[in-house]
């Protein structure tokens, strides 16, 4: 055993400290927050990576399929719009990100044996709230009533500020209901619950729009390029932004009240859930105002920039949360890391690839074809000896 320069705890002489994830082999001593993203150590903490941020518990090999799925969704939206099938393209834009999130929740078994509770409080709640808010707001204000004049102060107040704040608050209600359940004690849980609720909220809203649109026929007339801008805005940019701000805010809440560990000081003022909530509201309101007052492409660009900022924020929250899961328990027996598939002593981080072991699926797939060890348990004694002797 050696002593880690950063955390000072004993760790086997491997590439990474199994207690704090600090790089050991040949890397210069690091101080402060490490720069590799704890859920995906091959990426920089501040890098713009959609899959590893929105789906942080996936092993590296599995992230590729989520990237591919997102790409398929984008191509489908653009392709359908190009051939004139706009209602179908809108429906795809409404369903794509929520469907990916649902697959992710199932895939990594976020439920902790309570699938109905988690799905109900996140995705179902988000969808129901999205439907109700959309129907109510549409009943209150018809689009055709807005064509007599430019956007006025009242429109800015209601559609630019009031409605987005209500939306954001409703997105948070379901995840906050899970805060009381002590089983969900990871910062990752809070972040994923917040993101799930947000994407299903916006997905339901977009689905109502798409359903409404089917009244215009299979291929209603209209220019293609503005439609593609709309699809990318409502299908990808806005859901990513909403998922990021909602996830980051919920992550801060979990960090403060559910994570059992060393406080949220690493996040500075953003570790305070009230400040995090206010920051989420500012970003979401700015995006809504952009939609209200800017032409389509400019609005998309503004939302993309805001979404990138929010994504990095969510990354930092997840990262800090994972680092703060440092526990004082002893180093455990060797296990096979689901991320790099090599053996590592069981603690907080993989000693070979540096991934946070909490940022991996909670479920178990028996007989995984990629597992060449023949055993999914902790019985690889030879490897255990290699690790301990190393």
């Amino acid at each position: 055993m050696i002593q880690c320069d950063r955390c000072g705890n004993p760790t086997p002489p491997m590439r990474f400290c199994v207690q704090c994830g600090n790089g050991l082999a040949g890397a210069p001593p690091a101080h402060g927050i490490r720069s590799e993203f704890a859920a995906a150590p091959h990426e920089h903490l501040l890098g713009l990576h959609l899959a590893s941020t929105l789906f942080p518990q996936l092993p590296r090999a599995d992230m590729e399929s989520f990237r591919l799925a997102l790409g398929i969704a984008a191509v489908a939206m653009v392709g359908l719009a190009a051939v004139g099938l706009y209602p179908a393209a809108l429906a795809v834009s409404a369903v794509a990100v929520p469907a990916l999130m649902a697959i992710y929740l199932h895939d990594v078994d976020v439920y902790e044996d309570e699938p109905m509770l988690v799905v109900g409080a996140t995705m179902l709640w988000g969808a129901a709230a999205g439907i109700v808010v959309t129907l109510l707001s549409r009943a209150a204000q018809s689009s055709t009533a807005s064509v007599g004049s430019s956007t006025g102060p009242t429109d800015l107040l209601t559609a630019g500020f009031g409605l987005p704040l209500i939306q954001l608050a409703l997105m948070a209600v379901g995840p906050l209901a899970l805060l009381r359940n002590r089983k969900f004690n990871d910062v990752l849980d809070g972040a994923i619950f917040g993101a799930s609720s947000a994407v299903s909220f916006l997905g339901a809203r977009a689905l109502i729009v798409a359903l409404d649109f089917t009244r215009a026929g299979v291929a209603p007339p209209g220019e293609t390029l503005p439609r593609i801008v709309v699809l990318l805005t409502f299908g990808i940019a806005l859901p990513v932004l909403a998922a990021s701000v909602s996830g980051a805010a919920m992550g801060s809440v979990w960090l403060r009240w559910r994570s059992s560990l060393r406080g949220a000081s690493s996040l500075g003022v953003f570790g305070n859930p009230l400040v995090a909530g206010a920051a989420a509201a500012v970003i979401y309101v700015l995006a809504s105002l952009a939609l209200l007052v800017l032409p389509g492409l400019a609005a998309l660009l503004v939302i993309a920039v805001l979404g990138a900022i929010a994504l990095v924020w969510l990354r930092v929250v997840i990262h800090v949360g994972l680092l703060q899961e440092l526990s004082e328990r002893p180093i455990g027996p060797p296990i096979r890391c689901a991320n790099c598939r090599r053996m590592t002593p069981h603690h907080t981080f993989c000693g070979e690839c540096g991934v946070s072991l909490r940022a991996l699926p909670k479920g178990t797939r028996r007989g995984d074809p990629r597992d060449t060890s023949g055993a999914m348990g902790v019985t690889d004694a030879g490897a255990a000896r290699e690790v301990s002797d190393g």
Partner: protein
Amino acid sequence: MAEGTAPLPPAYAPSSAHAHGHFQPLGDRWASLTPMRRVLLFAAVLVAVVVIANLLAAVRQPTSPGGDCPSQPCGPGSNPGGGNPGGVIVKPGPHSTATALLLDGQWKSALGSLVEWETRKWTESARKDRSIFLLGSKSEFSLFVVIAPATESTPEALAADRLAFLKTLAPDLADESDPKRQTLGIPMIGNRQATASLLAGNYTKDQDVEPWSVALVSAGDGRISVVIQLVAADAVRDSAFKAADQVLGEFLWPE
């Protein structure tokens, strides 16, 4: 790195947080779907969504009634029946007493033109010296009338202004391409020939998208220029155009 002397600690018991079921150490767990299955499942969901959306759209697609004159708009000389089956910009017939009694809403512009409407069909939303804004039933369509002295603006310029504004709300607004939805006959405002543009596009503001049908009808008499803008949710296009037809037909130019 400082060499330590502590041996590798023995295995420890599972924490109570993971005591349900068999214990599985963190990190030794795998996603439940293989990458290929995950992508196939997602693709299947998208295909299902596309199929359902297209089926719904095909079922709900608005149909035009048959006959020589489609649902709208029909103009003089093109309507075998001589009546107006429901559209805009038709040449008005004689102003009957019965019609006059129904027209219980009125706005006289500062430039002398008169717009009349039935208050059971239209609700006045805003009026100024040179414009009036009417909302149709359930606010699913609206009519905006703008008047300007001919010395200040041409009908074409007024229409272009309205189109530019509407494009900020519906960026993909384009000429109506459906052959069943073209103007038949001569567009009119009151007793004067007008220019009409029929457009279709999608309102995209405030996280909302809604299909629109738009008519921009403009005319001038040398003293004033007029543009009348009708915006309707696509689903109520026919009834909106029919209601607008009456207002356009009853428009009175300054004497």
